[in-house]
């Protein structure tokens, strides 16, 4: 079956513009996660959804970042007024539920965002 997909695979934007990154989780997975990998850094948690609600938004770095999920499926991560420090690879993962270690998170290939 299909894995987690993300689009676009690459995005180049100018400082100050808004961008939207999309994640299509594995069908039937109720939990969806967003992570970020900045240059030379590890994977950093941003936000996760259980269904359409976001119980944990603790990783969002500023109020310029927001995410939504509709229909318990597709999620969109929006970054407003992008800054150069937002340049990173944004990874999405999904799991059957959010039971922590009991549910494996499957990752997408990521969106590489470059802010000029």
């Amino acid at each position, binding site marked *: 079956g299909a894995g987690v997909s993300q689009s676009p695979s690459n995005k180049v934007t100018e400082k100050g513009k808004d961008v939207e990154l999309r994640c299509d989780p594995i069908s039937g997975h109720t939990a969806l996660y967003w992570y970020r990998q900045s240059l030379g850094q590890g994977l*950093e*948690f941003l936000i996760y959804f259980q269904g359409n609600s976001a*119980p944990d938004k603790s990783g969002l770095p500023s109020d310029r970042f927001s995410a939504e999920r509709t229909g318990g499926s597709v999620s969109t991560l929006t970054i407003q007024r992008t800054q150069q420090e937002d340049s990173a690879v944004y990874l999405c993962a999904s799991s059957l539920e959010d039971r922590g*270690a009991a549910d494996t*998170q*499957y*990752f997408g*290939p990521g969106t590489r965002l470059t802010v000029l």
Partner: protein
Amino acid sequence: KDQVFQPSTVASSEGAVVEIFCNHSVSNAYNFFWYLHFPGCAPRLLVKGSKPSQQGRYNMTYERFSSSLLILQVREADAAVYYCAVCGNQGGKLIFGQGTELSVKP
């Protein structure tokens, strides 16, 4: 602060057993996850759990605050970044280390 620590690089030779060590300071985390990441591709889970376990050539050791990933009979194709992560028993947030870049000499 909740952190996961792992070496930034490990070097090995083909056929050897490679060990990548990881430890953490996350108070409510009991489970380790080891992911393989080829840049540009999706990170892939190798092994996970709260006890020693094995999946093919990948072994995971377990202590309450530390784990090692052992790669048996390492090959050049295993050269990649290996991430250690921990997760508490509730909720799904993974806390990742910085990643260990494995290089393998022929």
